């Protein structure tokens, strides 16, 4: 059984302007000790997806499908069960470490809070745990009683990681955890997260718009477009030899330094991602697709296997597969 499995997950925001389907039938799995990267442009539904996993969305949002954590469906849990899952089984690292910490509270107290709420241990033991967590993310435990402003950006992001680990969860959802950081600091934080995944046997979902971040850290990768997964597979394959035209365009936007093909040739994609209340017919990518055919405006294909463990939702892949069969 997978650590986390979503089955045909749909998330629809209800707004005064009508229903906005942000996630449209996403099925994915994450195992222990594995990192799944989710890539896509802003508005593709990647943040909504992980918010839906822990039911952090507004009450009015319509969520259907299944989110199985160790086989138990989070979407049907009652409030009490859900609270037990949050922090202790699965936790989130958000992007804005600068605004996620309370500036007038000592960091140690903020990290100890979920521990004290979730476990029946005293303050002293909780503080000892905070000290261990600090060491685990590479900050001297002696600094745990400082205030957030006394830490640098990279350290604050490490503290967010420490906080996510506070109640020993098995799954961590990280939403653009390094976007606000410098390249060098970003590399340090990513390295830390990879080490933690390996050492603690965690499952990690890493969301980023930056493919180089995902390529460095993830075993598997999924590319989302307009609320759907359009390609999924081992990250080296998805980013190195993508099968879906959208993944190719996204990968080409991140040049390989030293490769003459990218020199004086920045690569982009015309147009903009579609708005969820105005999705194109057929394959939602067809208006921007460089290789679109006539049928693409009417046919929306599901994920077809490219190789073992590698799938893409494109008529080209489908035709190839059919030709082989």
């Amino acid at each position: 059984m997978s650590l986390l499995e979503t089955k045909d997950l749909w998330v629809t925001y209800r707004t005064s302007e009508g229903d906005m389907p942000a996630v449209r039938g996403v099925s994915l799995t994450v195992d222990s000790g594995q990192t799944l990267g989710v890539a896509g442009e802003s508005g593709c539904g990647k943040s909504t997806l992980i918010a839906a996993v822990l039911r952090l969305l507004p009450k009015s949002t319509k969520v259907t499908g299944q989110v199985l954590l160790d086989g138990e469906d989070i979407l049907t849990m009652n409030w009490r069960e859900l609270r037990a899952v949050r922090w202790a089984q699965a936790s989130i690292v958000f992007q804005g470490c600068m605004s996620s910490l309370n500036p007038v509270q000592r960091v140690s107290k903020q990290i100890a809070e979920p521990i004290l709420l979730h476990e029946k241990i005293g303050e002293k033991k909780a503080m000892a745990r905070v000290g261990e967590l600090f060491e685990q993310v590479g900050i001297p435990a002696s600094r745990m009683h400082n205030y957030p402003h006394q830490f640098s950006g990279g350290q604050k992001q490490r503290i967010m990681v420490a906080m996510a680990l506070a109640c020993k969860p098995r799954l961590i959802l990280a939403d653009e955890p390094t976007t606000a950081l410098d390249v060098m600091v970003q590399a340090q934080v990513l390295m830390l997260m990879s080490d933690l995944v390996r050492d603690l046997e965690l499952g990690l979902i890493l969301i980023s718009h930056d493919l180089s971040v995902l390529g460095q850290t993830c075993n598997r990768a999924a590319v989302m477009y307009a609320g759907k997964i359009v390609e999924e597979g081992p990250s080296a394959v998805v980013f190195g030899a993508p099968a879906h035209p959208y993944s190719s365009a996204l990968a080409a936007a991140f040049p390989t330094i030293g490769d003459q093909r990218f020199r004086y040739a920045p690569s982009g994609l015309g147009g903009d991602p579609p708005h969820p209340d105005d999705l194109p017919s057929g394959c939602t990518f067809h208006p921007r697709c460089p290789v679109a055919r006539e049928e693409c405006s009417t046919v929306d294909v599901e994920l077809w296997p490219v190789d073992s463990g590698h799938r893409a939702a494109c008529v080209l892949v489908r035709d190839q597969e059919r030709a082989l069969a």
Partner: protein
Amino acid sequence: MSDDLRTAPGHQETPAGPQAVPAVVPPVSPLAGAAAADEADVGEPAIATQRPGANRAGPPVVEVRRLDVTFTGRGLRRGQDAHAVDGVDLQVMPGEIVALAGESGCGKTTLARTLLGLEKPTAGEVAYQGSPLRYSSRALKAYRRKVQLVLQDPTGALNPRQSVYEAVAEGIRIHKLRGNEEELVARALSLAGLRPPERFFLRYPHELSGGQRQRVVIAGALALEPSVIVADEPVSSLDASVRGEILALLLKLRDEMGLSVLVVTHDLGLAWNIADRIAVMYLGRIVEVGPTEDVLANPSHPYTKALLSVAGEGMAARTTRPVLLKGEPPDSTRIPDGCRFHPRCPALASGAAEAAGVAGACRSTDLPIIPAAAGHAAACHLVSAS
């Protein structure tokens, strides 16, 4: 000085002095467009056929010489001034795209702001077309028409209550440009790739996508017919697929109008995409500079190497483990003695500097400032020794 600096074969002599007259160039040269635009307000932009568009014979369009920018202020004790820029020589030639790269806090944005006349240098000077920048408001106004700024976040740079037309026309009105305002706005918008321009006149920023907003910001700059655009992280707030489009626009403007661009970025991939030359900055100094191909494909400074190793290596499988520098960039109120990079230098930590017999120098001897006209050069004791 050249003994202390590794200087690549492509070394160029310092161009003619400040009083030099722009060289007469044949009309096929990409510079023709820029020169014409400068001399006679605006001619039709000449179309360049070759790359790179830089004409190294003329004087640099903009240049900083021995630039120091020091901030003193509340919270900083005496003797603890922040040396944001600490001795920088840099030139941008006509029709050249120069990338200024480094981590945050390295002084790259301060350097760009000083170049725009938004900060006054503590020492050294900024020069435009060979003559030093004067800081009277009249001189600055004329200067800022020629050297335009494009910021990182177009949503913040545009007034949400101003239509696209108003946003682009504002500069035209301030500088009282001659000609039909509507035509000038339309021309700027279409140069920035918003076509047909009339369709965008009455749009508001919230009706545009991120890429379109950045094009409006660029159109606002182009409306004033600048010779240089200083772009501070122009694509880092944009989506990946849009990023390439904006970079392609900058390249096109350089090719077609001979525009020079100084692009401030932390993204080395961006430099590889569009820059002719790259300067890598660390703690207020340029530590390595040269043609982008040389610096990025064959880096010599340990800092450049480390940055490259963690940079988005495209999608190709990573072959080498990244060189992780310990800690964050040190702060500019306490610049280390000797080589300013030595406390974090992997070459010193690994003993490579010791083996080459320069470890002492790394810790105690400051490096000379790389001259602006150097080819590929790095400020590093180890590089000079080998």
